[in-house]
């Protein structure tokens, strides 16, 4: 069952700790003491060794991603420990992309130098917005100055592949404010930008505020205006809009995330991590977001992951489109046919019909246009 993961060349490490919980976030994370974090890193080490020794992870890694939570709460030494462990076991490919999500409020020059020295070569900096008032509303523990500083320090520490996160569609936001955010971000010369429309996830404090009518988010028209403005500004500045929410300068796409959308295998360690095994029609697994259980399983030498989803051919075809069409590159008809023995049009004639002009085959690949992306869920539903 794990054989195919042998070819997986991606690894995700989940760091489920934060200094405080943001009211819009529904990711698994805890507020933990430094001692608890030490203990967790040791468990991650055990987990990696478990995967290596059981033969599951046996191929030099092309991409490694420290996500969270707040991975920048890890001390450089801890990151170094994990990367060294990988280097000494499964190995890191020569040009491996090693990303770490950094929260501007948690880093300084010293720490960033440490990450760089440990082997991290790409930072994703959680700017979110450059408006201090809006940052307070989002419950972020940092301000504009700290974001700008984080970029400066990162360059000084030797990083040449920096990404910034931008959030838009914030409560009370107008187009001017968004344009200011974009200009401010572009001045920091990022290589990559992720621009997320704020989504209210159920079970979060934001969801409760929205139910009580205390959260006035922009309507659909304004959201569109924002989305299109971002597209215009960033493509105008030389970025490629390569996924619904992601922009990159040439050659700077996030290879790790691309693996998700192209449905390639990815290992995962840490409580709350997800794993995808591409063999057959695919298998999704996850490590339950339960720190005590995580520790217990690893101490007993057991695999803490559980099966989440299995796929038959039809489901695999549907998911291939559900993920692949998020990317500008789209889904290549020949690849699809080679994989499933049928073309997209042959497998989903009715769904394609319903997408109409929004989804077309260009240079052999099926692609949504910008309008199609804005109604992505509406259209993609037809394939599921």
């Amino acid at each position, binding site marked *: 069952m794990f054989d195919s993961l042998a070819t997986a060349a991606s690894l995700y490490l989940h760091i489920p700790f934060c200094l405080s919980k943001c009211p819009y976030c529904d990711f698994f994370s805890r507020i933990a003491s430094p001692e608890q974090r030490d203990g967790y890193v040791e468990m991650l080490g055990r987990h990696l060794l478990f995967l290596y020794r059981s033969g599951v992870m046996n191929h030099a890694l092309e991409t490694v991603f420290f996500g969270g939570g707040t991975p920048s709460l890890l001390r450089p030494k801890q990151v170094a420990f994990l990367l060294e462990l990988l280097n000494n076991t499964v190995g890191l490919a020569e040009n491996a992309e090693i990303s770490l999500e950094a929260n501007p409020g948690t880093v300084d020059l010293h720490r960033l130098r440490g990450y760089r020295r440990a082997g991290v070569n790409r930072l994703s900096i959680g700017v979110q917005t450059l408006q201090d008032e809006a940052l307070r509303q989002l419950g972020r523990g940092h301000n504009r100055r700290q974001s700008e500083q984080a970029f400066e320090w990162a360059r000084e520490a030797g990083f040449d592949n920096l990404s910034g996160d931008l959030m838009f569609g914030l409560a009370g936001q107008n187009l001017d404010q968004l344009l200011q955010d974009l200009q401010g971000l572009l001045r920091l010369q990022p290589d990559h930008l992720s621009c997320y*429309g704020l989504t209210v996830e159920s079970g979060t404090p934001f969801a409760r505020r929205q139910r009580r009518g205390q959260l006035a988010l922009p309507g659909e028209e304004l959201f569109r205006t924002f989305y299109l403005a971002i597209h215009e500004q960033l493509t105008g500045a030389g970025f490629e809009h390569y996924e*619904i929410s992601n922009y990159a300068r040439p050659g700077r796409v996030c290879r790790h*995330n691309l693996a998700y959308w192209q449905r390639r295998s990815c290992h995962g360690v840490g409580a709350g991590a*997800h794993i995808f095994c591409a063999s057959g029609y695919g298998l999704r697994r996850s490590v339950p977001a339960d720190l005590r259980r995580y520790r217990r399983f690893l101490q007993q030498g057991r695999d803490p992951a559980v099966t989440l989803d299995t796929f038959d051919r039809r489901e695999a075809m549907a998911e291939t489109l559900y993920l692949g069409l998020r990317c500008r590159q789209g889904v290549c008809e020949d690849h699809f046919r080679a994989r499933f023995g049928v073309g997209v049009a042959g497998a989903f004639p009715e769904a394609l019909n319903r997408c109409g002009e929004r989804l077309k085959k260009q240079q052999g690949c099926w692609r949504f246009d910008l309008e199609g992306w804005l109604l992505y869920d509406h259209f993609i539903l037809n394939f*599921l």
Partner: protein
Amino acid sequence: MYFVKSLFITFFQELEAPMDLSRIRNFSIIAHIDHGKSTLADRLLEETGALSDREKTNQFLDKLDLERERGITIKAQAVRLKYCADDGKDYILNLIDTPGHVDFSYEVSRSLSACEGGLLVVDASQGVEAQTLANVYLAIDQNLEVFPVLNKIDLPGAEPQRVKQEIEEIIGLDTVDAVEASAKEGIGIHEILEAIVAKIPPPIGDSEAPLKALIFDSWYDSYQGVIVLVRIVEGTLRKGEKIKLMANNRSYEVIKIGAFTPHPVELDCLAAGEVGFLIAGIKVVQDAKVGDTVTHLHRTADRPLPGFKEVKPMVFSGLYPIDSGDYDALRDAMEKLRLNDYSFTFEPENSLALGFGFRCGFLGLLHMEIIQERLEREFNVDLITTAPTVSYRVTNVKGQELIVDSANKLPEVQFIEEIREPYILASIHVPDAFVGPVLSLCTEKRGVQREIKYLTANRVMVVYELPLNEIVLDFFDRLKSISRGYASLDYEFIDYRPSQLVRLNVLINGEVVDALSLIVHRDKAQFRGRELVAKMKEFIPRQQFEVAIQAAIGNKVVARVNVKALRKDVTAKCYGGDISRKRKLLEKQKEGKKRMKQVGNIELPQEAFLAILKVKEN
């Protein structure tokens, strides 16, 4: 469907001596929905040892999943129980189950005709309901001995004294010996069995006379052919004999006879007074019509027993397969359902919007829902049901009378001389606190008051003549909500009366959608049109373009709403952990869209077709 009935377990048993009539009791349980009839039936089965422990699931007699889920009984059943009474003698108790909903009242009268007595089961906190009353009167009309059982005596809200008084005052039954019971807790079950033996008279009938057996139910079994439930009124029926069905004069040879215990057990004979089944190689249910008399081919009875009135569908609606490729499967499924339910009718119908489908007739709204659910569940056909309507009598200018059971069959207004609509006589039982709202509801529904009567100090019977058209919309739901569930309703058809009715059309993006047309009273057309399009707006999902919904009487548009175009619908983040979760959210959304029908370039959900049922009036 009747999976237990079709599992015929044949086993040898000793020849029983012809049953002594004084040891037989044939009885029914009469109860309102929710008053615990099925649970009580189960207890009686358990107490007499008819069920093994493994079979003591809830509500053994409700065989259809639907019956169990909805807590209602749709089809009659007959079960033979062996009971050794306190007097030391063995008795055969035949329990003939009855349905409890107004839509199926015709089945009640059939079941009662096979009995000498009935248990009137009344919820000790709810009291007597209109439906119960109607069934009790049916029983009393048929000279049945009825005795009351107060059920759910264990509940904190139970008021046995008050309810007994109610039974005496409303129905006029003596409650001195009424049994207080809790079927759920097993209280009073023995007392009930003793009362059945003591109070219900044994059947009478000459087992030497020419055979007369009343068919009170029949159904098709794919292994055995038609299975017929009979009550032997006179004579004796034996295995291997030649019989004749008196309605069509067809003759058959009896292959098997027996009784359900509740498992089918074969017997050698059934004599006067007994209840059981017979199998005689009858191919179609229509040949063994309920109400017909079975007699011997060579010693024919002089005349048949009085039969039953044939039931006619009262409510009509269109059923269309969502996937037009399912048309044949739907027809086959309907034919199969009709084998055992001849009160359900269907004929092909075409709709510009929905394509090929069927116009179906039902006894009432519940019957309609049940048929629809069974078609979907048992036969796996996804359906769109159009708004229910009744059957109108229309006289055109040439003096011809047309039967119109669909708004689309209504001629243009200039060709209509007169339209008549069916009226019913509705009896509503309600605590006096809710009489006001009930009266205004009846007035709003174009009712004509016939009677208001205090049954007891605080229970009132309100009798109205009402157009059935208004009942099939939302009358029952409204009645329940304005009386906090305390009102109950029974009704019977009276006649057709001239009325000012018009066709209300619904246009989507300027096109009339024929499947959405309705026949409504002229005075209400404008209001209904406005409310209908407002309601439809809630149900029609937003599309990539704006959708205009209009209501029109003839060519005159009376209301319009717009469903705004969808402008943004996108999941921003989709990484490792989001992939499964967000895909599943979308799949769930998709599941909800399954019951949608493409009409022109938009998709209409089932709810849009039934939106009229949700229109609230002031």
